[in-house]
């Protein structure tokens, strides 16, 4: 595996990305964050902290597990471990920033959009991803991209965050059996 982004760069990327969000949504009271399990939740939490630091506002934050909204749930031969969805605020009329670590085929985002729509009718939904590795299968784009990393289909992008993995790093490489699969969407 090759490291392509290190911890300090992740911090810089999130800082920049957050300011782009603030520019796009001037009325921050309108905004709420929803992170996609698992690493999207922690990235959303970091974005929330950056906003709090600079603007003094603590935004609503929800977590979303899209397992039961996947379009391949019946086809895969095992049931993936699901996490709890926790969206304790009303999404109706809000601008939602959906956060995930890696944007790939777009299927996870599609499932997340389906799931969010069951909670209500947001005024708009924006998407932020730390890494865009290409190979979209759906017409889905992210409004805020940390870094574009061209990849091959056989490659894997691994985002490690200190909250889960004990370190901040992004790796790329061909998966081997002994590496744990991280957040590749």
């Amino acid at each position: 595996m090759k490291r392509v982004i290190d911890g300090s760069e992740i911090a810089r990327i999130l800082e920049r990305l957050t300011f782009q969000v603030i520019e796009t949504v001037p009325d921050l009271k309108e905004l709420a964050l929803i992170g996609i399990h698992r690493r999207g939740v922690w990235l959303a939490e970091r974005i929330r902290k950056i906003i709090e630091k600079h603007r003094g506002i603590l935004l609503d934050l929800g977590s979303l597990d899209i397992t039961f909204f996947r379009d391949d749930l019946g086809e895969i031969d095992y049931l993936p471990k699901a996490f709890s969805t926790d969206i304790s605020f009303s999404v109706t009329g809000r601008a939602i920033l959906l956060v995930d670590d890696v944007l790939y085929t777009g299927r996870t985002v599609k499932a997340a959009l389906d799931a969010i729509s069951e909670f209500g009718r947001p005024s708009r939904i924006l998407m932020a991803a730390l890494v865009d590795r290409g190979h979209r299968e759906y017409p889905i784009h992210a409004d805020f991209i940390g870094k574009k990393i061209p990849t091959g289909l056989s490659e894997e992008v691994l985002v490690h965050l200190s909250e889960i993995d004990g370190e901040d790093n992004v790796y790329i490489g061909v998966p081997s059996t002994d590496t744990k699969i991280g957040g590749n969407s």
Partner: protein
Amino acid sequence: MKDLISAKELTKDDIYSILDTAESLHEINRRDIKKTPALRGKTVVNLFFENSTRTRTSFEIAAKRLSADAVNFAASSSSTQKGETLLDTIKNIEAMQADILVLRHEASGAAKFIAERSGTCVINAGDGINEHPTQALLDIFTIRRVKKELERLTVTIMGDIAHSRVARSNIWAMRTLGMRVKLFGPPTLLPNDPKALACEIAADKREAVQSDVIITLRIQRERQGKLLIPSLREYSRFFGLNSEDLKYAPKDVLLLHPGPVNRGVELSSSLADGANSAILDQVENGVSVRMAVMCALRRQ
């Protein structure tokens, strides 16, 4: 896992995986829009040879919340009355491309019999006096939500153990999880070989209630045979549970009942409606657990 036939066959990992999945589905059941597309396009057939409105409804709701099409097949009004065999009935339903078959049947082993002869995923919703695995899973799910952990708990099951599929499934699953299980009831309603179930038999009610969880079972005298219990009044006095009996139980003892409760027979109203009771939670949790089971099944 193609089928869920018996709690006896579940490993610790199987049980925890279903409980964890149920936990994440549980939140969906509390949304305004209680639906996920997980089983969209799938057909779930509820085939009930015994009447059980609440279990059937629970499975039906579970299927519908997963976006499956749920069809109820009431066997009493069907061709079985005209002499069609169980196997023929199943083959017919299978021919209509059902994906999941939920079977309730009065003969022990019926679900296994069908699962071995059908490509359709089968969920045992109760077979004779043998097993009712989703009830056990929802009981254990309810216990975990309250007690947070399972493995060091003691559970007492009171009532007709010998003819209870609920008791048997609970015993198997709880044993697998390393829980301690005590049984209490009149000797006519205890299993003939308690060693086979590896449970303790409580000598009296006082010993029985010294437990973290008490599951009281429904008494159906008309069904169990009048020989086994002289009268409901007598049963209630010596083997039922009321507030007085709970004096010797821990303050936070959790009371479960698979329902419907015979108030004043196996459980007094004050207990059924009291702070220790989780009977309605069981009903709610039943939907989440059954959704989790449906998501876990895979055709071979």
